[in-house]
């Protein structure tokens, strides 16, 4: 089944004022499409964690959402600098965020852990040269 793009939004590095707007937009789009509220919440959490990762850790990126009758696909692509140690990034409590970021309530080292918890399928590729590319699938049924 072919997927239809329902959102594509640019995310700027360190933009804490607008950070979360893409996730908020997607939440509203999914509600309008009549997606069940548990799935909307699950998707919102995943998207928001990934969006804030782009804001906090990257030099900027993009979030794209696609939908088919069976599933929702969230793609988050940034331009770098990449995740140094992917295994560590999935360790609960591990974070490379600065004290300044932690004081804002982020950098708890639970972001990717939460994404993994709510995603039905998660793939992540990261390198210094090509940035980080995350793909999350959430089943709609």
């Amino acid at each position, binding site marked *: 089944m072919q997927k239809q793009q329902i959102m594509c939004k640019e995310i700027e590095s360190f933009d*804490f*004022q607008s*950070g*979360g707007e893409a*996730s*908020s937009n997607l*939440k509203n789009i999914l509600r309008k499409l009549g997606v069940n*509220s548990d799935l909307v*919440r699950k998707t*919102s*959490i995943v998207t*928001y*964690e990934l969006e*804030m990762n782009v804001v906090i850790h990257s030099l900027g990126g993009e979030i794209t959402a696609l939908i088919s009758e069976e599933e929702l696909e969230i793609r988050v692509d940034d331009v770098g600098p990449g995740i140094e140690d992917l295994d560590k990034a*999935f360790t609960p409590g591990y974070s490379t965020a600065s004290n300044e970021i932690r004081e*804002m*309530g*982020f950098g*708890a*080292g*639970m*972001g990717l*852990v*939460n994404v*993994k*918890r*709510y*995603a*039905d*399928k*998660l*793939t*992540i590729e990261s390198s210094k040269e090509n940035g980080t590319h995350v793909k999350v699938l959430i089943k709609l049924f």
Partner: protein
Amino acid sequence: MNLKELKTLLKADIIFEGQGYSDDFEILNACGADLMSDVLAFSNEKTLLLTGLTNPQVVRTAEMVGIKIIVFVRGKDPQIETVALANQLDIFLYSTAKPLFEACGILYKYGIGPEEMNYIEPPNI
């Protein structure tokens, strides 16, 4: 517990009460956290958040999990941007002079239980 009782117990000041405010709004569960990922780990709606953080991302986080009420502890006033975003999203804001531990303790004593965490087994990546 309803919203009026919550405000009385915490001696809470109103920062923003939006559309649909009702004294009888029922509070079923709550979480107290200063880490946004901890809030995002909770699974159910109709939750109250008690926090010491006051930046707009607190409201954004609440929006993502369907939290309707935020109480800022230790008498903290949120930033103007935080109140503006709450206004836009119709999320109610209050402030209490009580510290986080005491505020949570009072609510627990008067019947608000902990939120159930979502313990979905993570898939292999």
